[in-house]
């Protein structure tokens, strides 16, 4: 692998050596200043998982963007520890802070310590390519080796195979062109875009001790998918105002399905795309505006939904149209309801609390983590909206008292010791008392799992 890469490097250099622009090695070395490796840990209940990702510097304040896949959803910001930023080829690291995730782009933002900002150059410094790369055009980018090789930078290049709207304009190259999260350039050294996590090339690592729950998503070292500069540059200012990534606009319909072209034809909506609405959450903005199951959304604020391929992409398009807006914004939807056309104004709300924001606590002696019951849990468990009863099991320590009793992650705890749980605080009080009472021999949980309930007897000591 290592030797193979060296060979590729040597071969790829040849055509650029005779190019009229600046020598590619010079361009490469300049642009290295916009590129870093970021290391951090995900602290779980019983183990720590190191994560290594690549990032691009976006401003003079030392802000760095990381791909959305770098951190799994559901991981609380408080679990992210010890961010360190490494320059290519260096063993020295600088501390950094995590700023949060932007809901629209999916990027995670970190900011490196002031002392380490001097040598960094924002990616915006490089002229953006005016035109989209043509099919067959050669693009190049930077890859970084692993920590044990001091993040040694290396050169990658490939030709554009196809440009797609997914729904953002994205080019797919014949082979890997850069590390995921790192910038990609054209022959003139202009910024063409940022390499994305490649399709089907990331995988989940599962904990050795904790079955069922993936703890980290690993990206392969290189990517052949590039989000074009025109889709990147306008959004670099979306640095989260809080670590929770708030505000996040909320629509409130859960099951959106693309409208099949055959269906469009039958409904005499040729060349029109749409999303079929189902599972509207009660008292959500969509519900309050009067959206109904089976409505087909055809346009947002007068703009018809585009026909994108594959069909599913239109659902992402719709989702992004919501997320690019702010809570309180009003969107006008054009709908097909049965045979009639309906216009509906929806005032977007504030996204209900996410798993990563939920209060949670680990009870070491009992062997599990409990978190708040969230609005979204209610949807999954088909509970009536706004239910705050009970708490969710977030983690179960293998071999622990509760694991032996048969408790599983995602169980919904309804009762503790026969008393109905009305709030998170009440559950905390009860569990803390049980955890602290060394003479306690047992306690009993009533849990709900897939619509069925179970009484679990937990033996302590």
């Amino acid at each position, binding site marked *: 692998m290592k030797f193979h890469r060296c060979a590729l490097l040597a071969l790829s250099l040849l055509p650029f050596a005779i190019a009229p622009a600046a020598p590619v090695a010079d361009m490469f070395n300049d642009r290295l200043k916009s590129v870093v490796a970021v290391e951090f840990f995900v602290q779980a209940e019983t183990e720590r998982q190191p994560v290594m990702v690549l990032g691009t510097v976006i401003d003079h304040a030392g802000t760095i963007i990381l791909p959305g896949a770098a951190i799994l959803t559901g991981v609380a910001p408080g679990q992210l520890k010890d961010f360190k930023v490494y320059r290519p080829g260096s063993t020295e690291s600088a501390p950094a802070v995590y700023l949060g995730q932007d809901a629209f782009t999916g990027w995670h933002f970190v900011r490196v310590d002031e002392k380490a900002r001097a040598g960094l150059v924002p990616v915006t410094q490089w002229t953006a390519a005016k035109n989209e790369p043509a099919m067959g055009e050669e693009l190049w980018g930077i890859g970084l080796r692993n920590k044990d090789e001091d993040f040694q930078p290396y050169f990658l290049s490939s030709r554009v195979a196809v440009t797609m709207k997914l729904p953002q304009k994205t080019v797919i190259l014949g082979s890997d062109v850069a590390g995921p999260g790192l910038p990609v350039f054209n022959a003139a050294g202009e910024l063409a875009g940022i390499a994305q996590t490649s399709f089907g090339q990331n995988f989940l690592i599962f904990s050795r001790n904790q079955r069922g729950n993936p703890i980290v998503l690993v990206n392969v070292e290189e990517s052949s998918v590039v989000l074009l500069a025109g889709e990147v540059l306008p959004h670099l200012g979306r640095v989260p105002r809080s670590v929770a990534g708030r505000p996040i606009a909320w629509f409130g319909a859960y099951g959106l399905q693309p409208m*099949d072209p055959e269906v469009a034809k*039958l409904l005499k909506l040729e060349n029109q795309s749409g999303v079929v609405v189902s599972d509207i959450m009660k008292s959500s903005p969509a519900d309050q505006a009067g959206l109904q*199951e089976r409505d087909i959304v055809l346009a947002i604020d007068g703009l018809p939904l585009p026909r994108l391929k594959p069909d599913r992409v239109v659902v992402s398009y719709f989702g992004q149209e919501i997320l690019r807006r702010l809570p309180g914004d009003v969107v006008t939807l054009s709908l097909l309801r049965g045979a009639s056309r309906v216009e509906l104004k929806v005032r977007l709300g504030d996204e209900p609390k996410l798993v990563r924001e939920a209060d949670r606590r680990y009870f070491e002696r009992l062997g599990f983590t409990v978190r708040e019951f969230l609005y979204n849990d209610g949807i999954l468990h088909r509970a009536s909206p706004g239910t705050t009863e009970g708490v969710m099991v977030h983690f179960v320590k293998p071999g622990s008292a509760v694991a032996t009793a048969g408790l599983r992650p995602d169980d919904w705890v309804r009762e503790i010791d026969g008393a109905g749980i009305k709030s998170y605080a009440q559950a905390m009080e009860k569990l803390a008392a049980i955890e602290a009472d060394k003479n306690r021999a047992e306690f009993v949980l*009533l849990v709900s799992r897939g*619509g069925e309930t179970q*009484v679990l007897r937990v033996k302590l000591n």
Partner: protein
Amino acid sequence: MAAITLLALGLAGAAEAAMSRGFNRLLDAVVRIDVREIEFTDGAKRISGGVGSGVIISSDGLVLTNAHVVSPQAVEVSITLASLERVNAKLVGWDHWTDLALLRIDLDAVKRRNLSFTAAEFGDSDELFVGQTVFAVGTPHGLTRTVTRGIISNNDRYFEDSRGVNGYETGAFNTWLQTDAAINPGNSGGPLVTEDGKVIGINSRGYIGADNLGFAIPAKVARSVAATLVKTGSVTRSYAGIGFRELQDLERFYALSANTGVLVGNVDVGSPAAKAGLRAGDVVLTLNGRKVDGRFPEQLPPIQQTIASLPVGSIVKLGVKRGDQLVELSAVTERLESRVGEEWAFEKWGLTVRKVSRAYARENQLTDETGVVVLGVQPGYPAAEAGLARGDILTKVGSKTIAELAQLKALYEAYEAKPEPQLVEAQRSRRISLYVIKP
């Protein structure tokens, strides 16, 4: 000492003679069953074949076998008698809960062809003891008239299987006999007998991959179900919607003395028990005034059977302990239904479906019983081309909601007469999608 031994031998000899008479009679009553039945799995109506065993239990040609050997979807049932002659048989009744089916041999054919058979005798399955020698007779892997020997390994085995009989529920209302007499595929429906040839069970299943862990329906259950099936063709049971669980180890927590009450593990949404106000975590102390003891799992089927055996529409009075309180609840039973609804094939669409039943809707947390579940689609046929897939719930065609299978059949007939594109609405985990079925 010597005399005693001789006496014992003498007795054994006499007993053996009696046993062999009984056993030979039994052998004449065991039949092989060849079945051809309709299957709706892959988007087409297909005929598949199977082999099982059975035992003749009356001189007028009633044959007892397993529900998973002969089902109502059987189109041809052929019986091989002890004389190796074959005659046809018809399904008389079927009960997947106990995995039993009752057939009737074509007596006209028997008479016309001058054939004969013997009816087996039942023994008392309540009298069995663990370690008692038993024999299984049947057609394992198509090997007609195979006798294997073992013992009763356990005479009160509890297991419930929500899809045990070709996707139908089984085992909730009875415990099973367990034996180490070799039971293989094809033994199903054959008798488990004592040394004197008395039928004490109907062999029904074994653990595949395990050694000699076979299970049989006790004769007591089989006789009573057969008596009902011959009269009405099916067994009507009452349903309250309570999932009982054993109280074992929890008595102290619920402040109960031992062997008192049974735990309510689950209450089906919308069921009579739910309407009556019963909740998971309650402890049922009395059932229609009689004390209940559900300390161990083996005691749960008889409790379920108490409710099931009531006429549909009966009032079930439950004495319930909830925390420190004692409450009296009463539920009105409904007719027990399977999770498996009626199945059908729409061959020109390459689509096979099963009606959403009340139990299926509950199990999958659906809002109601509307629609049919897609069992399969045939590649290249309109349903598959439209994008429908196994597990989708088809709820609407055109502007018509599919509440009953008959409605879909009618729409299909109209399509057959005049094929036109049909807008179809289907749900998958409650997400609605639209598809077009095109000729």
